[in-house]
């Protein structure tokens, strides 16, 4: 009896300790690598007072970077949403040859380094590039201009919506759509009334992630933008420039905006996740 009880005690104690050790390690890790830096961003940004903070955000170059970032997102997110829905619809609801190849191609932006993505566009549209002479002759500027940034952003953020929708659409199959068809609904009616409501949470989730990446993208945009202040500087690029100029307060003020965006994205993401889980039960 006694021996058994001791063994039991031991058996209980070890897992309990293990549990706390594991939790402690995780907490330390999250603290050191995520919470402390995040706090540091806001601390540095606000160190010299709230006035300077707002001043560095409303200063013309910063303001133009904010506007450009919003513009880029406003163009690329809707396009990728539309394109993502169409691609996911096509892949999930129809059978065709080369389907698997298409799915693999969609993943390329995830697999390839963003810098390379940017370089590809420079090689295509830059003045030394494949289409460079043609574009120059027609006075179209893509590289070191806004169109290049939009293209690079679309490329990098393309998979988010499709990847989110594909499994949902595949799981749902086409029976509800066929039922709608036999009840006399047309193509648009079927999309708005049957397909979209069934994918809306997944779609929203994809759009949120797509947006976060579109606003935060650095590598690909850095290659194609040319870093022209007040013209082709997005918020992440602006942060880098300020930092390189030792203008820490301004750099961290801009960075804090991106950090806020991240926090806001996470919040939205949790709400959407919570809603879609609730719907399923």
């Amino acid at each position: 009896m006694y021996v058994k009880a001791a063994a039991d005690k031991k058996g209980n104690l070890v897992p309990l300790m293990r549990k706390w050790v594991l939790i402690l390690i995780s907490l330390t890790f999250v603290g050191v690598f995520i919470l402390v830096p995040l706090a540091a961003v806001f601390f540095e940004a606000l160190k010299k007072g709230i006035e300077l903070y707002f001043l560095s955000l409303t200063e013309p170059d910063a303001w133009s970077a904010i506007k450009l970032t919003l513009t880029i997102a406003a163009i690329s997110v809707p396009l990728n949403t539309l394109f993502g829905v169409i691609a996911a619809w096509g892949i999930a609801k129809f059978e065709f040859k080369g389907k698997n190849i298409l799915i693999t191609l969609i993943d390329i932006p995830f697999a390839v380094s963003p810098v390379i993505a940017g370089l590809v566009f420079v090689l295509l549209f830059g003045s030394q590039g494949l289409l460079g002479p043609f574009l120059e002759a027609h006075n179209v500027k893509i590289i070191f201009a806004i169109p290049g940034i939009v293209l690079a952003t679309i490329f990098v953020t393309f998979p988010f919506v499709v990847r989110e929708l594909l499994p949902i659409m595949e799981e749902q199959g086409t029976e509800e759509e066929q039922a709608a068809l036999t009840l006399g609904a047309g193509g648009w009616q079927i999309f708005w009334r049957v397909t979209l409501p069934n994918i809306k949470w997944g779609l929203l989730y994809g759009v949120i992630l797509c947006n976060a990446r579109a606003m935060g993208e650095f590598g690909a945009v850095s290659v194609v933008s040319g870093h022209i202040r007040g013209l082709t500087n997005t918020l992440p690029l602006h942060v880098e420039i300020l930092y390189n100029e030792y203008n820490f307060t301004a750099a961290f003020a801009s960075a804090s905006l991106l950090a806020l965006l991240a926090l806001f994205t996470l919040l939205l993401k949790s709400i959407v996740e919570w809603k879609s889980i609730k719907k399923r039960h």
Partner: protein
Amino acid sequence: MSISINSVSKAFGLYPAVNNVSLTIPKGDFAALLGPSGSGKTTLLRLIAGLENPNQGRILFNGIDYTDKSVKERKVGFVFQQYALFKHMTIFENVAFGLKVRPRKSRPSKQQIHEKVFELLKLVQLENTAARYPAQLSGGQRQRIALARALAVEPEVLLLDEPFGALDAKVRQELRLWLRELHQKLNITTVFVTHDQEEALEMADTIVVMNHGQIEQIGSPEKVYNDPANSFVYSFLGRVNEFRGDSIPQELRLNEETAGYIRPHEIVLSRTALDTSSPSEVIHVHTVGSAVRVELKRLDTDDILEAELSTEKYRQIGPLIKGEMLYADFSRMVIFDDDRPNQAKVSNKIVTAL
């Protein structure tokens, strides 16, 4: 609306799911497409609805060619095997869907839609579920809502894919009767798919027996049951004992491959030997409802077979126990010459009644 299917074929890749099928279903008929899994029943139903396009052949409604018309133009009601209710809509919205998607000119008013939906919910006896979601209904209730939804658009043809496939035996039985009554009330030309021969025999006016994408026989339940066109129809429509070689009376045998068939209830059992009967040993006896099934071993050929008696007959013959000897008469055995269909040969010996 009458439906004519003229030499219709549909292949998936190289596989012919429906192969040169011709069939006419008169107006107001209640027809069953009966066949084993993979025989092309669903495909044929989807061809009628326009959910699949035939590779060849024509489909006519009321004598008018509808082959190239869209699903929408065909105005058929279709009930899917898994119901396919709209998960995110309430039952009311599900039933109202077909009315709400009509073009503005022919769309009923809100009030009219409301009335129509409740009229249909009443018809399927589920008025109190209007505010619920499909996930909150039982299988049988979902089935009836799917039917109400299909009826909302006032189709002239109703197509049902295994309407009771996913339900338990009791609910199934209830819904069979209910659907039959509903058909009598509404008199819509109805085609339903089933692989359950009992269901087809019990419900349908016309049975279309399918196998390997082709039609084996079309006819009334009595016709296909009592006068099957070939061995497939015979075997598919009821319990059957199959014999080969020496177990078949000499005068019936066409060649080595000939198979003889007899249904369990056609085997006549007696305790005394008749000149045509074979001695058999009782292996197992069990009662199923109003019938008694007796498993036997034929001692002259070693075949294992099943005979069926009414409880009344069983009482006359007396209780049977395992190992007991009986005499079984196979005079009503039939063979099919599948090269010359529709020619079942029946053994011409006199059937001795007990």
